[in-house]
């Protein structure tokens, strides 16, 4: 069963527009959720984790247990935000990744 679902394979927005990358998870316990990002020709890296409630590069993500979602948001997208974004769920020290969303920010 798919633990993490990212419904959009590709999301294109114009620079300065708001962006929301969707992530839904399947887990009845208390989840630990993360967003990872892979910029072109770079390695996969951690962007943010929900327990930190931090904002990284203007991105935030709120855990909604009722909707079992952990959407990634940014009010004003920048061209340098273009990348692959993966949502990940950690259960008993094991990571489950979504299939990823490619964000394309157009000038």
């Amino acid at each position: 069963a798919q633990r993490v679902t990212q419904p959009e394979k590709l999301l294109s927005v114009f620079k300065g527009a708001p962006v929301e990358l969707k992530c839904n998870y399947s887990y009845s316990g208390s989840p630990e959720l993360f967003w990872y990002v892979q910029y072109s020709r770079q390695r996969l890296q951690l962007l943010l984790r929900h327990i930190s409630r931090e904002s990284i590069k203007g991105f935030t993500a709120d855990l909604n247990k009722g909707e079992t979602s952990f959407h990634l948001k940014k009010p004003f997208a920048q061209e340098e935000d273009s990348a692959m974004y993966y949502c990940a769920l950690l259960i008993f020290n094991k990571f489950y990744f979504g299939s990823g969303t490619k964000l394309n920010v157009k000038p």
Partner: protein
Amino acid sequence: EAGVAQSPRYKIIEKRQSVAFWCNPISGHATLYWYQQILGQGPKLLIQFQNNGVVDDSQLPKDRFSAERLKGVDSTLKIQPAKLEDSAVYLCASSPLAGGPGEQYFGPGTRLTVT
């Protein structure tokens, strides 16, 4: 600090051949992961080591895949014999024992093509 190193970066083999991948984690990192990432999918955990012991290998196809982490440092992942469906990027990641959850550092990956 130096990042996670992997070699080779690319490998093309024929089905039924054998292949091995090597990973050198960040110095001092106790946990090492091998992931398989098929085109269009997210990384899937194959095996996780804590020092030189296996923590989880439930998704490792043990009839053809094997992995070891001698002395709790470097690790090798082997496929023998390879199948067409093994074509993927194989990612190695490591994390410190005292690191926060999710704090994995990924290598550049090895892209395997099985023909």
